[in-house]
């Protein structure tokens, strides 16, 4: 069969149901195979949209997201999603076309060194040199993308090789001697961790995206409630522990709750599960959690002791390690539950004194925080929520209380504006029966608006709620707080008219300006068939609080 038909067979064998992509000269043969390849293809309007859609699909479903792009500009357009997937550990396979082999290295039309420019930002990559390598490379790519610490894998296929006639045989034996992720944690270390937790008087569980990736939220719940361990999650870990549970402290980090950040600051033992002590979590590193010892559970050994030295390092997948940890913890004798009373009294004190709060308006004005609360109410807290990057992202993280994993999809590590809308598209394709909303910024949403056409054409009914303050809000906030309010190029003015844009793209456009009717209006938007874009006019100059100022320790939070 043709190599491209073998590609389709391989994708089916890997369980791929959908590919997000855009054809071009260098992947014409592959696109020919889509005609009767038996795999759904969603035609995006820009390769970045395709890449983010694949990420959204992967984050919502836990399956590998797949994106196709052509050579040259197609490949360069998809770089941002690849980096995004690398930073946030998203399983993704990107297949790019390449110019034919005799043109490689000659600066041929639409040639770019895709392997070279993606090399620093991928988990692994392949350039096919011989048609018979294709099936094995595809299967290896999927295995690498989804196992261990997930990440993006790029396959670059020269167009002439994809036209070759090959004898296709399913590949069942993968041999990757240099890649053997450790999944089961070391039992002795885990026992030690259990003992440490049992004797800690001020413990905190600090959980991250690794809990979501490993499908370990049930285990996290079980472990946390095996005693009364306080739990905080990173931006990537939201939904890993139910936000309505009394042991939940809220998100930690730069815009986390005081209770969470103060608890980290005063903890004597921090159990980190699938998180990586990012600078947005630690604030000033030298003053981070000064009294704490650290248990660090991570599937990627390179994360352990990278920023913070771990006292009890455990390499393994969050789910496997937590299962063992629960067992070890339950088998301990004489654990005094009451040892945590004092700690909880302290935490309750912080919670009472410093709840998440904002000054609500007394008139029709919609405060951005209220907008998220209204959306929470309108969706009964049960939607998949994607976001772009900026203030609206932080407010969404703070005020939409995520109770389940894979409901919160955003760009954490790279902080990619323009992520939310295409990610919602991908999430909706993966979860057709769920309500998928995107909380977007008026700045961010313009970076990938073209995908509204994809949604309209393919009847992908995402609901986009633009938190419109006419500013690049987070940058404005930093200029306000740290640059003497000298606003430089943050005012986005009054264009475009998002309602008209929505209509031009075949979506329904709405504009909400009244707080009093907001919840009802939102319900109406959610009930509208097909994609909907809502321009929600919010307070122009509102700052996201509380905040750990950059380079400061957590205990000096402001706002």
């Amino acid at each position, binding site marked *: 069969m043709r190599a491209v038909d073998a590609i389709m067979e391989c994708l089916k064998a890997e369980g791929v149901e959908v590919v997000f992509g855009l054809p071009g000269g260098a992947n014409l043969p592959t696109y020919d195979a889509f005609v009767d390849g038996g795999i759904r293809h969603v035609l995006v309007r820009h390769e970045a949209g395709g890449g983010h859609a694949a990420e959204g699909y992967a984050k919502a479903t836990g399956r590998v997201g797949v994106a196709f792009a052509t050579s040259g500009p197609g490949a360069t357009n998809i770089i941002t999603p690849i980096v995004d997937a690398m930073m946030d550990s998203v399983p993704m396979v990107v297949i790019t076309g390449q110019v034919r082999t005799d043109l490689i290295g000659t600066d041929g039309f639409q040639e770019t060194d895709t392997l070279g420019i993606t090399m620093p930002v991928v*988990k692994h990559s392949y350039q096919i040199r011989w048609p018979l390598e294709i099936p094995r490379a595809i299967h290896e790519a999927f295995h690498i993308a989804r196992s261990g610490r997930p990440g993006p894998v790029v396959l670059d296929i020269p167009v002439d090789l994809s036209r070759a006639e090959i004898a296709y045989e399913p590949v069942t034996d993968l041999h990757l001697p*240099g890649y053997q992720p450790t999944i089961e944690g070391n039992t002795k270390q885990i026992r030690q961790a259990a003992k440490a937790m049992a004797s800690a008087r001020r413990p905190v569980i600090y959980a991250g995206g690794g809990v979501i990736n490993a499908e370990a939220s049930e285990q996290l719940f079980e472990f946390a409630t095996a005693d009364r361990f306080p739990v905080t999650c990173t931006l990537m870990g939201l939904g890993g522990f139910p936000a309505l549970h009394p042991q939940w402290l809220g998100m930690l980090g730069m815009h986390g709750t005081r209770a969470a950040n103060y608890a980290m600051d005063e903890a004597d033992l921090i159990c980190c599960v699938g998180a990586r002590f990012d600078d947005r979590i630690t604030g000033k590193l030298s003053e981070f959690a000064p009294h704490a010892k650290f248990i660090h559970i991570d599937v990627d050994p390179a994360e352990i002791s990278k920023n913070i030295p771990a006292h009890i390092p455990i390499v393994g997948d969050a789910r496997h390690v937590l299962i063992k940890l629960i067992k070890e913890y339950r088998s301990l004798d004489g654990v005094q539950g009451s040892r945590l009373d004092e700690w909880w009294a302290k935490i309750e004190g912080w919670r009472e004194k410093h709840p998440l709060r904002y000054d609500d308006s007394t008139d029709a004005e919609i405060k951005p925080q209220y907008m998220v609360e209204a959306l929470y109410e309108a969706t009964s807290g049960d939607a998949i929520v994607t976001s772009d990057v900026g203030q609206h992202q932080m407010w969404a993280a703070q005020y939409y209380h995520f109770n389940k994993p894979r409901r919160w999809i955003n760009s954490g590590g790279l902080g990619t504006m323009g992520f939310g809308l295409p990610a919602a598209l991908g999430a909706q394709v993966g979860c057709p029966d769920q309500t998928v909303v995107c909380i977007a910024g008026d700045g961010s949403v313009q970076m990938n608006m073209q995908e509204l056409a994809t949604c309209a054409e393919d009847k992908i009914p995402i609901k986009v709620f633009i938190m419109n303050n006419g500013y690049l809000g987070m940058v404005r906030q930093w200029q306000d707080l*740290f640059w*003497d309010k000298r606003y430089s190029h943050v005012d986005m003015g009054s264009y475009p008219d998002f309602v008209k844009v929505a209509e031009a793209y075949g979506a329904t456009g709405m504009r909400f300006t009244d707080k009093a009717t907001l919840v009802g209006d939102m319900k109406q938007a959610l009930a509208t068939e097909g994609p909907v874009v809502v321009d929600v006019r919010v307070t122009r100059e509102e700052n996201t609080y509380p905040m750990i100022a950059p380079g400061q320790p957590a205990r000096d939070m402001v706002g």
Partner: protein
Amino acid sequence: MGEPGTKELLSLEDLEAAGGLHTGRKHILSILVENQAGVLTRVAGLFARRAFNIDTLSVGPTEDHNVSRITLTVDGALHPIDQVTKQLHKLINVLKIRDLEPEDTVTRELALFKISVEGPQRAEVMQICEIFRGKVVDVTRRSVIVEITGTTDKVEGFERMVRPFGLIEMMRTGEIAISRGRGET
């Protein structure tokens, strides 16, 4: 030091101090990699993007034609060696890494020196060459090329001795290293 996003001015001294001008023990990493296109780029690229400096690097085939060995030296104080090796391990094509103990390791590098010699200097250079057990591999009326094999210290010692004569060019391969005793490196 201030956060880059804030207004606080940064002095060049602060920047320099943050960059860290330490020195520390030299580490010799012996890395077995799959013999595939682009592997060296992946290894070198990893060092570049994590801001690790490679001091010397040498790559060559091994007794197994599917496997190549990269020997590189890095400054251990400048970069936590543990981070370097863990990041290297994440490369799919990297099979094995050893941080070799200097006492238990035989290291060698090859260097070629092109030295300007005229008249009586020639005899003097030849004598130094002999002391270092070097080999003269090319002679002209006004120059000699000397081949030196040995540890980095020896190569550098020879360089110091002949530099005053007029060192036209020097080329070094970078160290290769093999562990002492019967066991594999």
